[in-house]
């Protein structure tokens, strides 16, 4: 019974009026037996304790959700640098466009969409929606049909495209950003500068901008600010390394990827190579005034340090919620940027620590030479501070000073040597500031410098090769199984301040082995394994200094004291493995930013390692399995080499895209898509090959492909191969070992660039199995994906070429071998569901006299036919049927809905007849086609009326056989006739006929019959 609202209101308000302890008694009295009411009031009183609003956020803020932030989306506000105005008085906001409003305006350059509901096409991009609009043009969300990924496309508006300088700037943005490959910079995939209008294709970031975040949440927490600031600095460092200055660093140009909140810098619209003097001298002010540097505001030449000033302003805004240079009007803003000292941060937000305020202060130095000098330096400093904050340690304040002093000081902090000069003498000595700062650390007197080792994290994979049933699936030699191991060390460093006269002075770093610590597995199937302290496949981790071993982390348990300083780590791994990657950094930083951050490729088993008292140092290691290169060709019967390492005689080339070199079949990297395919068709087979991709590369193995037209993986069965680490965000449907566009790999498999991987594919009917480096990645029946079968007609092909894809990136293949399989025995498929006529169609011009009664399909006079299509040349039909006395019916094969003059279909009729009338007895086969006489089979048996019997009709490449209760009754070879007539039909005759079917089953047959006999042909 629903609770009466008026009563509930009265009681609730009454309860509020009495003190809480008395409420129970009140409710007891008032509610009596109405437990429902009482429960409701109690619940309401409980929720009343929580003040607050009904909506989690201000409704206007909620509106912002759901948009997809994209590179360039928020870059309104800047007009064409070549136009007359320096920049507009009022920025021109980008208007978010409702995805549902079909905004056809201004999209006339799109060609018609190939999928309903989409906006149109641009090249091989299917445009799904408009994400943003602004003065420059539009940003579209689109699907790249070649690379199978969602992209953002920025299209220069036709009005701007006409302007040479706008066009130039647009192209410049693309080139500038494309040159920077960094995970904190929005990637540029492609630029079509000659297109009308020109457009650039970039990574589509699902997330919001930093400005959005700031608007919604106000000032950020210190930790988060450091995390974001560090990543911006890292992105800038990468750009600066390319000689590029971004020139428009501001919160709306910083995107935060959903979920991970990875920072991505976007909009390199103003970026310029530093030596590109022609534009810098134009005197045109471009950029957003509130985040400009003083030199930008003054129109002076700028270098990378200009971005650092802007970064300072961004950090200031993150601390306070707004830019420090707010003013009414552009000129007032510029003036403030040039002259005014920002209001001290701690006056605005006293939660900001002094050292952070100092860092921002140094970024905000009006003279660029007084700022930090490199973004790298800032990134490192912020990383260290982040580590310290996360470890809950107090951070020494950084005094303002000259950049050189700061750099030196910073170096000291990193190496930890500064504490040695702890003589409290010269107050101007920046190192003293550090020492003083250190003194504030609680517990410093304890003075143990510890290094914790965090051990191995996990081993993912997969050394156990799996076997396909019934076949000698090989041990996966050469498999680069992903063996990933992450090990972390914690170096806990504290300074020992007590002086020990005449003894060792200085800092000691301690190394402590600790219990295993887990953070993240790289793969979905990762099994976390600890083997005591370290992964079993690591034999030795030696820490060396100046070539001498100072610690052995495997054998040495307990505490090792090591002075802070520079060391070398030497990793020895078991045979069959190699150290693939490592990263070293503040432990908490590693632990909190899992993923690809900071990984370095290992060259040999050693790498440098700096221990410091400043933070815990962590190391992550990743092992890879080495390849057994001694591949021996299969000798088992049935296996055939498809590539001999020398020539491509088994393969046909399309285009100049492939070559044979160094024993591999490899793509030529001419940035064109083309594929290589076998000289003949293969239907069911096992295929094995080894492949190797260059970093960032992609390829695919096409199965049962065909030859016409422009070939895409989305057109037929294809197994994806891709370096998805480099590609960053790709959907699971496009990961290595996925069936392109149909099924994601069952487990994540990891393609490591520059390493050989083993791919094994088994294709049998609609069943597809894929094993990648021993990981069983696919075992699917395509019939379970009816939507995909409909969408991708190529999936239904039973045979075709095997192809390898050139995607304009380097892919190599070797040891390609194949074993053909005989098709699997197909299973019976029931064509009548026992309920209704689903799947069957009456003839459009004839009455439908078919019904389902008590689970039986019944046809009654007068003449009527039920059709069903989709039958090939070879199949077997089996019906359980009966006929009334005097009636007649038929199963007709190789027919179509085309009718003869007497309104009966052409085709091969297997008669169901209880009389000998007209000679069409049960089991007789009458084959009727245009210009082809009627043939009849021999009659051997006539079943009795109203008795169930089994009627088989087999078609094997034109040879039609009829059986009654298992006995052959007739056979006719119709040759090629009836080709194209892919229907079957059920027929009922006139004159009171009633034909019934209990079941009608179907299965496919191999193309040719094993034996052909007794065909009678008149």
């Amino acid at each position: 019974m629903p609770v009466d609202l008026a009563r509930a209101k009265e009681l609730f308000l009454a309860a509020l009026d009495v003190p809480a302890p008395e409420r129970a008694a009140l409710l007891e009295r008032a509610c009596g037996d109405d437990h429902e009411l009482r429960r409701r009031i109690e619940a309401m009183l409980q929720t009343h304790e929580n003040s607050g609003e009904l909506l989690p956020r201000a409704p206007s803020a909620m509106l912002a959700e759901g948009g997809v932030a994209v590179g360039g989306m928020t870059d309104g506000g800047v007009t064409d640098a070549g136009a007359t105005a320096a920049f507009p008085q009022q920025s021109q906001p980008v208007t978010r466009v409702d995805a549902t409003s079909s905004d056809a305006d201004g999209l006339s350059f799109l060609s018609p969409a190939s999928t309903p509901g989409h906006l149109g096409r641009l090249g091989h991009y299917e445009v799904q929606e408009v994400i943003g609009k602004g003065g420059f043009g539009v940003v579209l969300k689109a699907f790249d049909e070649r690379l199978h990924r969602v992209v953002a496309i920025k299209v220069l508006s036709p009005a701007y495209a006409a302007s040479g300088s706008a066009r130039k700037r647009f192209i410049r943005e693309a080139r500038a950003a494309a040159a920077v490959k960094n995970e904190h910079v929005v990637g540029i995939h492609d630029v079509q500068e000659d297109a009308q209008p020109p457009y650039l294709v970039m990574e589509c970031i699902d997330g919001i901008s930093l400005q959005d975040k700031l608007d919604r949440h106000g000032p950020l927490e210190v930790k988060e600010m450091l995390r974001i600031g560090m990543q911006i600095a890292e992105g800038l460092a990468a750009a600066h390394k390319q000689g590029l200055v971004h020139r428009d660093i501001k919160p709306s140009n910083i995107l935060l990827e959903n979920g991970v909140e990875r920072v991505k810098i976007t909009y390199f619209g103003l970026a310029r190579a530093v030596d590109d003097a022609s534009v810098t001298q134009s005197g045109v002010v471009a950029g957003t005034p509130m985040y400009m540097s003083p030199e930008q505001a003054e129109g002076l030449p700028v270098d990378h340090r200009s971005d650092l000033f802007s970064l300072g302003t961004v950090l200031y805004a993150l601390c306070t919620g707004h830019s420090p240079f707010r003013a009414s009007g552009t000129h007032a803003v510029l003036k403030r940027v040039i002259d005014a000292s920002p209001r001290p941060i701690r006056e605005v937000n006293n939660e900001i620590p002094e050292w952070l305020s100092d860092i921002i202060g140094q970024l905000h130095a009006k003279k660029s030479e007084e700022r930090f000098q490199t973004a790298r330096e800032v990134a490192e400093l912020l990383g260290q501070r982040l580590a310290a904050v996360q470890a809950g340690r107090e951070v020494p304040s950084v005094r303002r000073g000259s950049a050189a002093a700061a750099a030196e000081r910073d170096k000291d902090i990193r190496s930890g040597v500064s504490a040695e000069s702890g003589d409290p003498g010269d107050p101007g000595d920046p190192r003293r500031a550090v020492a003083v700062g250190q003194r504030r650390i609680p517990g410093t007197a304890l003075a143990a410098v510890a290094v914790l080792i965090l051990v191995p994290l996990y081993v993912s994979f997969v050394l156990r090769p799996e076997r396909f049933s019934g076949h000698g699936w090989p041990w996966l030699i050469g498999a680069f199984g992903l063996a990933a191991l992450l090990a972390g060390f914690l170096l806990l460093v504290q300074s020992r301040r007590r002086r020990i006269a005449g003894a060792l002075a200085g800092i000691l770093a301690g190394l402590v082995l600790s219990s295993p610590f887990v953070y993240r597995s790289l793969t979905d199937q990762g099994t976390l394994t600890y083997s005591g302290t370290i992964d079993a496949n690591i034999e030795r981790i030696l820490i060396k200094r100046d070539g001498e071993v100072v610690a052995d982390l495997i054998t040495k348990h307990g505490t090792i004291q090591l002075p802070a300083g520079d060391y070398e780590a030497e990793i020895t791994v078991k045979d069959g493995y190699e150290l693939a990657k490592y990263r070293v950094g503040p432990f908490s930083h590693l632990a909190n930013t899992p993923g690809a951050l900071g990984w370095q490729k290992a060259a040999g088993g050693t790498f440098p390692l700096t221990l410091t008292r400043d933070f815990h140092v962590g190391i992550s290691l990743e092992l890879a399995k080495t390849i057994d290169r001694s591949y021996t060709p299969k000798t088992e019967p049935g296996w055939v080499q498809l590539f001999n390492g020398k020539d491509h005689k088994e393969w046909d080339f399309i285009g100049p895209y492939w070559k044979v070199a160094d024993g591999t079949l490899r793509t030529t990297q001419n940035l064109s898509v083309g594929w290589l395919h076998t000289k003949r068709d293969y239907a069911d087979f096992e295929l094995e090959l080894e492949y190797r991709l260059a970093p960032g590369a992609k390829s695919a193995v096409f199965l049962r492909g065909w030859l016409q037209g422009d070939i895409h993986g989305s057109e037929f069965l294809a197994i994806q191969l891709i370096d998805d680490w480099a590609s960053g965000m790709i959907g699971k449907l496009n990961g290595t070992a996925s069936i392109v566009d149909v099924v994601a790999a069952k487990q994540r498999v990891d393609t490591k660039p520059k390493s050989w991987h083993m791919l094994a594919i088994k294709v049998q009917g609609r069943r597809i199995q894929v094993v990648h480096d021993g990981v069983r990645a696919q075992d699917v029946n395509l019939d379970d994906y009816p939507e995909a079968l409909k969408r991708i007609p190529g999936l239904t092909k039973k045979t075709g070429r095997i192809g390898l894809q050139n995607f304009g990136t380097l892919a190599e293949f070797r040891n390609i071998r194949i074993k053909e399989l005989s098709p699997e025995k197909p299973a019976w498929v029931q064509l009548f569901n026992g309920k209704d006529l689903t799947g069957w169609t009456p003839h459009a011009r004839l009455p439908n006299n078919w019904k389902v009664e008590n689970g039986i399909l019944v046809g009654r006079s007068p003449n009527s036919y039920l059709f069903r299509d989709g039958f090939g040349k070879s199949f077997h039909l089996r019906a359980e049927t009966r006929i009334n006395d005097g009636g007649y019916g038929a199963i007709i094969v190789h027919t179509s809905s085309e009718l003869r003059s007497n309104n009966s279909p052409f085709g091969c009729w297997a008669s169901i007849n209880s009389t000998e009338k007209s000679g069409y007895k049960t089991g007789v086969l009458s084959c009727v086609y245009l210009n082809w006489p009627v043939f009849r089979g021999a009659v051997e048996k006539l079943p009795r009326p109203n008795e169930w019997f089994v009627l088989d009709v087999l078609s094997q490449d034109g040879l039609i056989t009829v059986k009654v209760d298992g006995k052959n009754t007739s056979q006719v070879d119709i040759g090629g006739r009836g080709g194209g007539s892919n229907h079957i039909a059920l027929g009922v005759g006139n004159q009171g006929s009633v034909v019934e079917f209990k079941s009608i089953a179907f299965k496919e047959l191999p193309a040719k019959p094993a034996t052909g006999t007794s065909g009678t042909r008149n």
Partner: protein
Amino acid sequence: MPSHEVTQLLDAVTRGAAHAAEQLLPLVYEELRRLAAGYLDCENPGHTLQPTALVHEAYLRLVGGEASAEWQGRSHFLATAALAMRHVLIDNARRKRRDKHGGDRQRVELVDQPDPATDEDERLLALDEALTRLANADAAAAELVQLHTFGGLSVEEAGKQLGLSRATAYRQWAFARAWLRCEIGDPRQ
């Protein structure tokens, strides 16, 4: 939309012409939507955008600066704006839900994480339905919620619009909030 038309409509609403309110709603709706989208996308030096600010700006834009001093139709406009804001939000949430269940076939997943936005949308839609039900039984309470939650007025201001004393307004709000939270299964119970 010429501002005098809006002014006339507001006058008509003030005089009690029901059809005028109907005509006014779509105008306010559009304006709010436009403003919200613009605000949230462009750089905004301020902090969080308050709905009242949005409503005031919509009013200024629709009615014009001169008229705003003599804000004759203020309360009617606020009521209309609150309803419009509710519609804007609900439409937005519905669209997102539709998109989510529709063919967003290439959703990129980096990590499996619950989508807080979805929860928020579902909650918003549930609140909308519950509020409609509440309006049938207790129109005054529902109107107060609408003005406060969607119109951005404080409880007191919203009460004033409805001619309620401060104490009554808070009691209405306390009841309506508790009732609605129970109706939508608020996790904070």
